[in-house]
Structures are given as C-alpha cells and as structure tokens.
C-alpha cells in the first residue's frame, strides 16, 4: 500500500511540474519546474529499485544539465516569451491535437496492459541470490564487461561534445 501512495504523490508532482512547464511564460520558471519533474522521477526510480539510475538522475540531470540551462538563461537574460501572431496559432493547432493523441495513447495502454503482472516493489529485489537489483555494483559489472565498447565510445562522444560546445560558443574576433 505504501509504495502505491508514494507513487501517486510523486506522479502527481511529476505531472504538475510538466504542466507548469507548459503554462509558465518565463523560461526560468519552466527550467525550475523541470527540476521538480526530474527530482520526483528520481524518487520513482527508487521505488522501482533502480538505485544507480536514481543517483545519476539527481547528479547528472537535475544537477549538471539543469545548472547549465539555468546559467544560459541568466547569461542571455531571457525575458518573457514573446508571441508571434500567425505562427503561434499554427503551433496551437498542431500542439493541442498532439497532446490529445498522447493522452489517448495513455488510455489505450491502461485498457490493454492492466492485466499485466504487478511489479514487486517495496522490498529488495533479489538477483542471482545475493545482489540487490539495480545497485551500482551490478550496473558497474554489466557496464565494464558486456557494454565496455559502447562505454568507451561514449567517452569519445562526450569529448567531441565538449570541443564542439567550446568552438560554437566562442566569440569570433
């Protein structure tokens, strides 16, 4: 019962933050409500037994990426979103049906997947007799054995992204 209550609390926070992101006019308010969404998602990951993913969600997403966003918003001194008459009407015409289609897909998922097995949460998930499911040790084992090549390619991707960011944001003489 307790996991269900916790799930509903954090799911409500998530959806509230996502809707607030849409409603707010100022980008800094949208960025802060996205941080709320990410923080409550991290707690939902903990409910699912994904300890490592929850920690990375807080450190990398809510920490590093969102700090970068907030820095850029303040650096550019971004004000209230300005409206363009014609184009925003077109976007509304496309965006509201997009939301409705997404939500009806959600309803479809509910009506078709309600019979699936329940996920056992609220206790440590036992894997191979000893390890707790989703702890950093198990993830590291998998990451450095089975996924070693993708992991190393990832480091090259990050390096290229850093160099690209420096080159793109450089002030031209």
């Amino acid at each position: 019962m307790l996991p269900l209550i916790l799930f509903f609390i954090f799911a409500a926070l998530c959806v509230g933050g996502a809707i607030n992101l849409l409603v707010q006019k100022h980008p800094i308010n949208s960025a802060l409500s996205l941080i709320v969404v990410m923080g409550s998602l991290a707690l939902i990951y903990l409910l699912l037994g994904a300890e490592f993913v929850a920690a990375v969600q807080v450190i990398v997403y809510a920490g590093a990426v969102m700090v970068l966003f907030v820095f850029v918003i303040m650096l550019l001194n971004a004000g209230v979103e300005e409206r363009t008459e014609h184009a925003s009407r077109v976007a509304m015409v496309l965006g509201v049906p997009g939301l409705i289609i997404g939500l009806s897909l959600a309803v479809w998922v509910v009506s078709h997947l309600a019979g699936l097995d329940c996920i056992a949460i609220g206790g440590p998930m036992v894997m191979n007799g000893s390890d707790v499911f989703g702890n950093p040790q198990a993830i590291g084992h998998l990451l450095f054995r089975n996924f070693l090549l993708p992991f190393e390619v990832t480091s090259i991707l990050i390096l290229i992204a850093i160099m690209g960011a420096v080159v793109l944001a450089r002030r031209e003489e």
Partner: protein
Amino acid sequence: MVPLSYYLVLSAILFACGVAGFLIKRNIITIFLSIELMLNGVNLSFVAFAAQLKSLDGHIFVFFVMVVAAAEAAVGLAIIISVFRTRETLNVDRVNLLKL
C-alpha cells in the same frame, strides 16, 4: 505493488507534455527543455520495463540516454548562445534561416 501500466501511463503523460511544449512554445530554450522532458518520459518506461523483466539492460540504456542528453545539452546551448549573438532574439519564428 504498483502495476506496470501506471508507470507507462506516467511516462506517456510526460512524453505528451514534452511534445505539446515542443509544438506550442516559441522560446528556443523552453523548446529545448521540452526535449529533455520527452527524454525523461522515455527513461521512466525503460526503468519500469527493466523492473518488470528483472533485467538490468534497461538501466544501461538509461545511462546511455543520459550521456547523450548531456552532450546534446552542451552542444545545443552553445548553438543557442551563438544564435543569440547574431540575431539578438530567442524567438524561433525569427530564426527561420540556418545561415548567419
């Protein structure tokens, strides 16, 4: 016990909010935030299926999605800064040419 479908519905709602924000918003930074919201929605369904199938592969996928999102945020924000330097605006309707 929380059914898998609840997690999937939450994931779908987050993704739909991201799509709607991407289409409705006119500020380039808010559009970028909507993309991050969509990525988070997808990550949630990865983790939910990983718990359902008792497999850690979903967590690895989430890890790689986060890496790509971090790289994308760095490059994308650098592009936004460089666009703002030349155009002095963040409205995507005024940034309708790729050339500077």
